[in-house]
């Protein structure tokens, strides 16, 4: 009997442990904020949550992956995307609140220090290897926007040099810092975050896409008030400061 009892209480313990780790944690910890954010926001958002004292659990990935999770029923409190289309689409489908544009970024060519690549034209040279984002992730679609504005022979040559289509900016940066490719298209903030390991080559103004970041409170969030406070802080205050320090620009107007 004692052993049966022990086994039963062990099984009950497992169930209790799981439920404690699951959804009910918000009832014991009413301030916890769950943030799903674009991989390019990692440094800025981590610093912001620390500085402003948010009890935030943040997960960083390609914005498209995070949006797909929300479509599959995952409910973070805040969704912050590296574009405005994904939050707009989710808003239209009634899954998140009205998006707020909180920052802009610029797309650049990232190369290791001392690289022989100095302009976008150099990427078309035979033998150059490039990593870009998968077409579904914002950084990948911005990159294709840039290439579409080039003469078609040049954009074809550059696409022909692409060796990998990565799921988010962090794995593009990894491929460049590890020397797996010669260059890649990422945001200026990703280059800043490497602390001098990489250098940024700016794109001509005529090629630069409009990279705007949108954030929404997710419908059905556990903690909507805290989520609202988090997003407000991105526009004015500690969040805006952390974004600026990471190299982001404030939203236009």
């Amino acid at each position: 009997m004692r052993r049966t009892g022990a086994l039963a209480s062990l099984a009950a313990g497992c169930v209790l442990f799981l439920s404690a780790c699951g959804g009910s944690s918000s009832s014991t910890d009413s301030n916890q904020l769950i943030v799903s954010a674009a991989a390019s926001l990692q440094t800025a958002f981590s610093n912001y949550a620390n500085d402003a004292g948010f009890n935030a659990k943040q997960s960083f990935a390609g914005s498209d992956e995070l949006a797909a999770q929300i479509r599959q029923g995952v409910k973070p409190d805040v969704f912050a995307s590296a574009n405005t289309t994904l939050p707009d689409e989710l808003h239209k489908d009634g899954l998140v609140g009205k998006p707020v544009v909180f920052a802009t970024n610029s797309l650049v060519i990232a190369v290791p220090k001392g690289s022989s690549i100095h302009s976008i034209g150099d990427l078309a040279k035979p033998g150059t290897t490039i990593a870009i984002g998968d077409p579904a992730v914002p950084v990948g679609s911005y990159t294709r926007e840039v290439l579409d504005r080039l003469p078609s022979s040049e954009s074809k040559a550059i696409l022909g040099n692409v060796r990998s289509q990565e799921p988010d900016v962090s794995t593009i940066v990894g491929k460049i810092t590890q020397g797996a490719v010669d260059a890649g298209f990422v945001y200026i903030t990703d280059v800043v975050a490497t602390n001098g390991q990489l250098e940024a080559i700016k794109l001509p103004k005529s090629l630069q896409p409009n990279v705007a970041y949108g954030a929404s409170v997710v419908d059905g969030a556990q903690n909507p008030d805290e989520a609202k406070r988090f997003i407000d802080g991105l526009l004015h205050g500690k969040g805006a400061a952390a974004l600026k320090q990471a190299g982001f620009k404030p939203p236009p107007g």
Partner: protein
Amino acid sequence: MRRRTAFAGLLFVCLCLVLAFLTLPIVAIFTDTSPGALISSLGKQGSLDALWLSLKTSLAALLIIIVIGTPAAYLLATRNFRGRSVVMTLIELPLVLPPAVAGIALLAAFGPKGIFGSALEDAGITLVLQTAGVIVALTFVAAPFYLRQAQEAFAAVDRNLIDAARTLGAGEARAFGRIAIPCAGQGLTAGMALAWGRALGEFGATLMFAGSFPGITQTVPLAIFAQFSTDFTSALALSAVLVIVSAALLLSVKLLGRAPFLGGGQA
């Protein structure tokens, strides 16, 4: 008596929980979308490329593992030498390594900036972002599954059979080929199936070391990840294929385990 029933009931409830938890997600792959939609989305070029690439790279990795791994496992099973257990532990280590660690390790060793990077470059070999790099990653993560099984299978072969062959004039190589391999056939086949299954499912190390490019390095798991956000049905369809192939592999391990023609009965 009542005590026994209560205990049996508890066991039964636990088994039901285990079964439900482990099978429901897999059943959901097949019921979330209609079978017709699953099959038609498999015909898309991206999915076909990924399936073909996965088949090629996993079989290439398996071939390398078998050709080099079988004699190595035989040595480990038949010789006792100092440091043998250290060697065994080192060989089994990739079994428990997280895939991301395997990816970093491969980059640190064979990447352009890795310790063998410049040697490989001098030899004109590039692994990162190439199909060859996928094969390296798959071999790295899958080999221990085969080596472990093969070593155990060889160790279980009756030593007298091999000694008898030797006294009858067979050289060691001949005894290995004609006696040890057939006798260990069941275990070797099981090891192959497990290694193949692991290679087919490899994700993290491939992404970090070989990248993701359709037709070159984007294997089925990477294609599933890429399609997850844009085309959930295609991602489900590819997942369904992996489930079916993996189930077939597992089933063949179980069935072959009973087949007497592979030497299952003799050992």
